[in-house]
């Protein structure tokens, strides 16, 4: 029987939910399983509810599902918010000290949620307490595993003769993880290894956590009654790594030769910049060390200005931001456009508008990005569908920007950034570096914006011998000096805009859009919906229902002809994306004169699960769906 197991850990922000989940993910990955983990959190430093779901499987998985098989919690809020997600035969490990806790004592439960919960408990005739919600879970066939975390620590401190341990509530996360692993019979060796890994810089803390882990692991083995799920390990797949969301673009930038990154802190983009700075010294084959200069600027306007200044010196340069930051960058984006400066902006979208849901997911910035900036200028908008892909796409984005001398916006999002997944080890040798018409030397007279057959001029760089040029945000002549001459204006505009055609002609079609089969019913989508779509597609296939899927990666300029040709045999088109208005659908219709039959949309700020997509697709196939299917799963 195949394994498909979802574990959930929750607790107040700052209580170690994330490191707990990292240990659990690492253990499962080391035992050969594929992992898809996802973190949800409030815009808050300490106290609000955060949770992590980790889906574990022996097959390749690309998404979360709705069903949770085992939940572990060390606070009341997690139970109140998630008790109804645990499926029959699943389990809840919880702190027995909390049983009498009622909803009013959990101050972080917001009023609308509490109202819904109270209504539900009233209908079931249950008290508004942890005991009340757990009873309803039990009635649904969920097994309850109460344990007093306080007593666990007390027993542990007595056994180790270390009174200090008694009060170490910070270790609740490790206790929870270890209780869970014991319950599912996961071998304990990799638990110890993972703790060593995760606390590698703090050996003393690692030691204490290991003792606590083994103690609670054994407690679980000896005291908890049988659980239906056991995960005892499977053979490892070779070349598998466990990565966090931003690793694809950050490692991609290092490999692609990005040597300058400026940024202003913003969720969910800044993890990438911090990671680049943490690894700022780079090993270079057969050469002295290289480095990435990472500058935290005073705002996003400065971030893009500095990036452009650096790019003019011939340095591959980048910035990373989210929607509100990108909004501030648009004036300078146009400057990069008119001055034909190769830059890559990594745009980790979140849910807008304005500050919106600042720590939640959304794909709301597509229309804004495609149309960003005043005036007409060429740019590329490119979207990655998963973390592994984003590594290679980063390499491509830098090549596009250099070859076409054009700003590239590489679209990522919060769904990707807060995922932790297993995937195939990145292969840097599969990335190439093409700097286009960047010059090594200049001889004779030089004109930065010289008219050429392909519309792209040889590029000098600031500080290069004999390569003097001028830039201006005004319209310019071939030297880069200001002009308002109407005839030169036409030629310059035509020169710049012509590269949009060049992009479509010369970027390989496999990099423009990817077809995962085309059938009568075919999904069109972009970005991080790829994972849940692939999983939903596979679920339906097992039932004998074939659904096609075309993932569009190049969103601007739009590969009209190629996408139209891919979809010629599709009869019903289904657009899936995480925003209100079906933004991709609008771009699709603008370019391809074809109606979209259904939209599956989600704008709660929570990522899509494959279960939700499966349900909606099934309704579509059974002709029971609305034209706009709106998804809402997730706390």
């Amino acid at each position, binding site marked *: 029987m195949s394994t498909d197991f979802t574990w959930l850990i929750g607790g107040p922000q700052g209580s170690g939910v994330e490191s707990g989940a990292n240990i659990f993910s690492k253990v499962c990955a080391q035992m050969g399983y594929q992992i898809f983990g996802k973190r949800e959190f409030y815009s808050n430093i300490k106290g609000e509810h955060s949770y992590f779901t980790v889906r574990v499987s022996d097959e390749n998985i690309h998404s979360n599902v709705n069903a949770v098989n085992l939940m572990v919690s060390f606070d009341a809020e997690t139970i109140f918010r998630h008790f109804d997600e645990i499926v029959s035969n699943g389990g809840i490990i919880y702190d027995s000290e909390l049983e009498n806790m009622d909803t009013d004592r959990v101050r972080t439960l917001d009023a609308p949620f509490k109202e819904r919960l109270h209504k539900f408990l009233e209908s079931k005739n249950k008290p508004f307490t942890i005991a009340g919600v757990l009873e309803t879970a039990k009635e649904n066939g969920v097994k309850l595993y109460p344990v007093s975390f306080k007593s666990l620590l007390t027993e542990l401190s007595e056994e180790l003769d270390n009174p200090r341990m008694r009060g170490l509530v910070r270790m609740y996360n490790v206790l929870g993880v270890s209780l869970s692993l014991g319950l599912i019979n996961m071998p304990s060796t990799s638990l110890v290894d993972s703790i060593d890994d995760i606390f590698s810089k703090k050996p003393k803390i690692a030691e204490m956590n290991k003792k606590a882990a083994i103690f609670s692991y054994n407690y679980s083995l000896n005291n908890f009654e049988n659980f239906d799920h056991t995960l005892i390990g499977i053979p*490892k797949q070779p070349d*598998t790594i466990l990565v966090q969301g931003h690793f694809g673009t950050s490692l991609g930038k290092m490999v692609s030769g990005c040597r*300058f990154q400026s940024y202003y802190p913003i969720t969910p983009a800044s993890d990438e910049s911090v990671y680049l700075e943490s690894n700022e010294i780079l090993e270079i084959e057969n*050469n002295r060390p290289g480095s990435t*200069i990472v500058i935290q600027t005073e705002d996003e306007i400065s971030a893009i*200005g500095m990036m452009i*200044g650096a790019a003019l010196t011939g*340095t591959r340069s980048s910035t990373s931001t989210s929607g509100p930051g990108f909004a501030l960058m648009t*004036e300078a984006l146009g400057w990069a456009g008119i001055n034909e400066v190769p830059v890559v902006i990594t745009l980790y979208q979140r849910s807008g508008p304005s500050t919106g849901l600042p720590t939640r997911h959304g794909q709301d910035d597509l229309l804004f990005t495609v149309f960003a900036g005043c005036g007409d200028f060429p740019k590329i908008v490119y979207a990655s569908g998963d973390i592994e892909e984003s590594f290679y796409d980063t390499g491509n984005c830098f090549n596009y920007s250099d070859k076409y001398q054009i700003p590239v916006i590489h679209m990522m999002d919060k769904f990707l950034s807060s995922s932790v997944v297993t995937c195939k080890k990145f292969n840097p040798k599969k990335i190439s570096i093409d700097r286009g018409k960047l010059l090594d030397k200049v001889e004779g007279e030089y004109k930065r914006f010289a008219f050429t057959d392909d519309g792209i001029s040889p590029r000098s760089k600031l500080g290069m011998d004999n390569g003097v040029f001028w830039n*201006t945000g005004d319209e310019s002549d071939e030297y880069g000096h200001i002009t308002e001459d109407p005839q030169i204006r036409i030629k310059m505009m035509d020169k710049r805009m012509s590269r949009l055609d060049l992009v479509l002609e010369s970027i390989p079609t496999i990099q423009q859009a990817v077809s995962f089969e085309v059938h009568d019913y075919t999904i069109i989508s972009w970005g991080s919906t790829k994972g849940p779509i692939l999983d939903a597609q596979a679920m339906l296939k097992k039932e004998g229902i074939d659904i096609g899927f075309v993932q569009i990666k190049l969103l601007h300029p739009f590969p009209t002809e190629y996408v139209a040709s891919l979809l010629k045999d599709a009869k019903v088109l289904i657009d899936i994306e995480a925003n209100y208005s079906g933004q991709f659908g609008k771009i699709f219709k603008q370019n391809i004169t074809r109606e979209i039959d259904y939209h599956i949309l989600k704008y709660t700020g929570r990522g899509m699960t494959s279960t939700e997509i499966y349900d909606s697709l099934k309704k579509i196939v059974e002709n029971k769906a609305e034209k706009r299917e709106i998804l809402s799963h997730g706390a």
Partner: protein
Amino acid sequence: MAPKLADYKTDVHNDWCPGCGDFGIVNALQMALAEMGIERDKATIFSGIGCSGKTSHFINTYGVHTLHGRVLTFAQGGKLANPDMTVVAVGGDGDGLGIGAGHFVAAGRRNIDMTYIIFDNGVYGLTKGQASPTLKLGEQTKSLPSPNTNSNVNPIGLAVASGFTFVARGYSYDVRHLKDLIVKAVKHKGLSFLDVLQPCPTYNDVNTRDWYTGVDLAQESMERHSRIYKLEDSNFDPTVNYAGEVEVNEKLSQALIKSLEWGDKIPTGVFYQNELVSPFSTRLIDKIPNYLENPPAKQIISDNGFPNTDISKILDSLDV
């Protein structure tokens, strides 16, 4: 052969108004570059938006005419990526102290080795003479419908408070003195700021050339009457000579007090200089020892079209 003054001039038509104070600044800048013998292709002039923004087109070095208020951001990025080149940023007072004031303050904190020159004329010329951040409260220049309702920014004081390590003021009609100040500013190790008083003959009819030279004062006295005087002619030592709180505080406060002097006597020259503050490159070297030998713009990133960056250690650490 060392470049001559003429080599720093382009043949781009200069469309500034006749008598514009900007001419003196662009001449002084070209003279300073020639005097220092900086090769044309080893210097970049970054400029903002407005009349002063056109400066980069008149100088025959690399020239980057950026966006309104953003010149310092582009200039710092360029200098950080290629620290071998000489970087001079120029812009108007509205550009640097209005829309760009945040960048001005932040630049002071970094102390990157480059020079920033503000063309300070109290008005937004290219948009027909609105009040700019340095125009004093209650003054009414030609195109203002009513007297200015905002107080002015004190550029020298703001620069000193923000952490610029060389702060000076020049006067655009004293080109030789201004040239000397530019040479000092460029040679300074760290971020240097030069506030240049620059009459706008078209829109600022208050702070005119005659006003700076004190023609109105001359009617009252037959003595030397120019409002402009040079700090170096007075007993003023702007330099922080040794590290120590007392010395630094004394020189900082002296500069601040001096920056408030205005009216019948307007000081020019160096207000403050402190080379004991580490330039940004030194701070980078603390983390990245070979930053200056192998800066971003000089790094070789590929070998035969393939990456030469070795991330295998990081990748191995991610193995399950």
